[in-house]
């Protein structure tokens, strides 16, 4: 609970009930568009007021362009979605030239999600972004395969995860988020390694590895065979990781996974998240993030909380369970 004090900016209570401060990252509200589900910003602009969102996390950006996987790249599952986009992106240079300018003037907070296949690649993407204004935080996606070490994902091993974190930390003073993979035996060990290596904030969780069968073709449904499971199906998995990790580390945690309603957000907050990211539900309900932001103040009050900050970790052992 060491991190708890950090999360409560003096005087914020009652004035800005939705405002949150995650280490050095200050947001008007805790609702962040999740990486990969919100493009680079303009795609959803016809439907969503970007300035209303707590922040926008862009699609993962790598040093060179990545092709991603062959289609089909999505498949519906019970209360969920499998995707195998494969981190397609045009590379950091094109991102800075074509996409950042729009984001800079959109009036929102910008989180750039970065990816790489070697430790050096991650660092070089971060380095390149240092030259750009209008970026509020970096989010390091450690679910990428480490090509130098036989392809095991960086996020599946505490040491690899720490290596990436240290390398990015060395080149940036921006708030540094590291995004945890759920596909591990011990998420807390990864979280602790990454926090020690200099992460300011954790986000959890990325998608859960899964697959589907297309019975029409009697083949794996996705072009890439396996994919990442998201949506309400994974909410219990995400809540458990947020609950355990947030108690084990002294830094704020952003909760992600299957959030569809303001109630879901409150569940993540009381489990220990200081903010949340919202992904898959946007595909069906582009305005849902704004609706959640609108509903949250009354919901907090109904449960006896005067602010988001008060709710954070209210379900932890030893906490009173809220203001009631």
């Amino acid at each position, binding site marked *: 609970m060491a991190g708890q004090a950090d999360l409560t900016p003096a005087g914020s209570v009652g004035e800005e009930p939705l405002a949150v401060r995650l280490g050095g990252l200050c947001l008007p509200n805790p609702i962040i568009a999740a990486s*990969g*589900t*919100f*493009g680079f910003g303009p*795609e*959803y602009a*016809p*439907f969503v007021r970007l300035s209303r969102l707590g922040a926008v996390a862009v*699609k993962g950006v790598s040093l060179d*362009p*990545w*092709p*991603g996987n062959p*289609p*089909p*790249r*999505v*498949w*519906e*599952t019970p*209360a*969920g*979605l499998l*995707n195998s*986009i494969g981190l*397609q*992106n*045009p590379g950091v240079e094109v991102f800075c030239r074509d996409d950042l300018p729009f984001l800079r003037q959109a009036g929102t907070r910008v989180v750039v999600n970065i990816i790489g296949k070697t430790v050096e690649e991650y660092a070089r993407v971060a380095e390149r972004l240092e030259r750009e204004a209008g970026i509020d935080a970096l989010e390091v996606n450690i679910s990428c395969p480490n090509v130098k070490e036989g392809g095991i994902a960086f996020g599946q091993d505490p040491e690899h995860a720490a290596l990436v974190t240290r390398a990015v930390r060395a080149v940036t003073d921006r708030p540094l988020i590291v995004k945890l993979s759920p596909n591990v035996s011990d998420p807390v060990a990864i979280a602790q390694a990454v926090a020690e290596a200099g992460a300011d904030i954790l986000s959890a969780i990325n998608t859960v590895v899964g697959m589907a069968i297309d019975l029409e073709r009697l083949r794996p449904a996705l072009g890439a065979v396996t994919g990442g499971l998201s*949506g309400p199906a994974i909410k219990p998995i995400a809540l458990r990781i947020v609950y355990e990790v947030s108690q084990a580390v002294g830094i704020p945690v952003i909760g992600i996974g299957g959030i569809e309603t303001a109630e879901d957000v409150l569940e993540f907050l009381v489990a220990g998240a200081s903010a949340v990211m919202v992904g*898959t539900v*946007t*595909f*069906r*309900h*582009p*305005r849902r993030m704004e609706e959640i932001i609108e509903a949250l103040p009354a919901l907090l009050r109904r449960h006896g909380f005067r602010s988001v900050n008060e709710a954070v970790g209210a379900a932890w052992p030893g906490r009173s369970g809220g203001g009631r």
Partner: protein
Amino acid sequence: MGPKALEVVIARRELVAPEHVELYFSHPALKEAVPGQFAHIATVGTLRRPISFSRIGEAGEAAVLFRVVGRGTAWLAERREGEVLDLLAPLGRGYPPPDPGRPWCLVGGGVGIPPLYAALGKWGRGMQSMATVILGARTAAAVLMADDFRALGVEPTITTDDGSLGERGTVLGPLRRWWQTHPEGQVYACGPTPMLAAIARLKSPGGRLYLGMEQRMGCGVGACLACVVPAAGAAMPPWRRVCSDGPVFAAEELRLD
């Protein structure tokens, strides 16, 4: 005006063929919809369902015609007049307006037919000569909208796999003959991807060919990169998005093998 989140009331529902339903509605935001564009419709499940417009009127009247293939379209087929649909629309890039001076051929297979009808409805009267329409289906009962085309003054050439109506075989036979006599013609095609690939192989060098593509979609608005099809040339990433770069592509834009 661009795409919007719309709630539309179903004004009319019609069973146009076994397992094929057409739903009519209208909304001012649909006034500017272009044939080939689609609506991303909330049904059941995690994702919306993309369906092309089968009709586009000048005052925002529109319709979608779909085949029941799974849970989402089954739900949609059960909607009744007066019920509300939740759409993101109009989405994507539709067909370009045809060159009025060039011979025009519309080639559709199965549920690829409706957007072509919308195209003829919008642009048919402005053409210097009557368009040619070639409709393909597995069997007679699945030939869609033939009477609608007739009402626009075109007698469609029909092919069925089983020969139960029109010429036995696929749309490729009549199209090959058309292209021989109209090598500079413009062809608007829509249907299953293998059919479109075969059509692209027939294309005469001087002709123009626009293809309405399908792919499994996530967002429908260009954000998630789910709906890609292979791009021609050396583009990197080597894909185009069906939902926002398409669904209509000039044949030259794609790698269709």
